[in-house]
């Protein structure tokens, strides 16, 4: 699952807060709490990254998240996908 390519839904706004960030989905009106600043960093990395092939593993590595914490991050990112904050990046076929 770490090879998935996720990105922030364009209808979602992320607002930094002392505990992490608040995400609001303008489409389904859901308010989501990102409860750790490291999760916020990873989400922002996934979103800002221009590389179309950036995977979850790439993002976790780039954000210096220790591998022992990866399972927890996978769960967090799964939950964010479930609530439509994140979604699979559209595959752009080359050429």
């Amino acid at each position: 699952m770490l090879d998935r390519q996720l990105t922030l839904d364009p209808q979602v706004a992320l607002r930094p807060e002392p505990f992490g960030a608040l995400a609001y989905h303008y489409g389904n009106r859901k308010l989501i709490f990102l409860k750790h600043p490291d999760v916020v960093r990873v989400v922002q990395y996934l979103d800002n990254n221009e590389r179309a092939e950036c995977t979850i593993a790439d993002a976790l590595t780039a954000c210096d998240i220790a591998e022992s914490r990866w399972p927890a991050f996978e769960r967090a990112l799964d939950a964010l996908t479930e609530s439509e904050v994140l979604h699979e990046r559209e595959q752009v076929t080359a050429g």
Partner: protein
Amino acid sequence: MSVNKSPLVEQLKGGLEAPICLTWELTYACNLECVHCLSSSGHRDPRELTTAEAKAVLDDLHDLQVFYINIGGGEPMIRRDFFELVEYSISRRIGVKFSTNGAFIDAEKARRLAALDYLDIQISLDGADAVTNDAVRGTGSYDTAIRAMNHLRDANFGEFKISVVVTRHNVDQLDHFKELADEFGAQLRITRLRPSGRGADSWHDLHPTNAQQLQIYNWLLAHGDNVLTGDSFFHLNALGEEPLPGLNTCGAGRVVCLIDPVGDVYACPFVIHDEFKAGSVRDEGGFTHLWKQSELFAELREPQSAGACASCGSFDACQGGCMASKFFVGIPLDGPDPECVEGHGEAAMLAASSSRDSAPVPRPMMDHSKPARPTEPERVPVTVSRR
């Protein structure tokens, strides 16, 4: 198990960079005179924010990344610049949820509303039939609301909300409200009655009885996330092991606040009183400065004393209840909620009103009620000038 001890709720109590839930009463003008109106609305205040001032506030809220605002009043659609402000807000990526009695939603307005993205509508209804509703909201107000709901449905607005203040007279109608909402493809929202505004006088006759509180709690547990509550019933959590859905803590000045029609900023929509006024959006620094620097909000974000409730086993569940409800019945802010499910509210209210040294029960401020009229006069086709 207690949801209130979660680190997240503790964080929220310390305040956020910007409000999650900001209510903005656009005008004190209203075509109705509901007996429980939390803002004692009736006639317009000449000092109300101009269109330009309101847009400047929206610019501030945009910079703060406020996701959405709850617009109310009075009746917000009475403002001539209502659509201009709503459209401006949405263009600044601030979603709008607005509360209305529906009087100004005709077929054309319904289509205009349906065309807007990021707009939610709450139609206020306090009875599942005309008799129950009109006793609180005034003659004809039930039909007015239903007419507006029909227009919204015809315009394919989608899922609007029906917003009910729960009273002892409509608590038995919760299933009917749900059926009505389902019939319209709407979502039901029920909220708690507070002794605020004109409610300070009507609350004593309207608030649910103790037995009815259990009824509300059980009904909410049965309906879960399908019914919205604005997280307003957290004082009921002491009734059982299972917490109600939602944040279950008082957000006043921490995640919630109110901007009133003249630009004054209060800790929550239910405390229009100088004691809970942080300042005005017209002050130097505007709303942003107030949210981040106001002394009142800083105090509210400090850990609060459990006071008289410290020794009660239910405090973790109910958090001492609602600040506004205590204030307007004269109970100290660290005392029990007047509707405390353990029954401590009655005694506290009695103590507040009978103690010889105690200050008089605070009265709501900013009364814009229309002048009292003799018992419902016949409607005459001329406007009699009155002060």
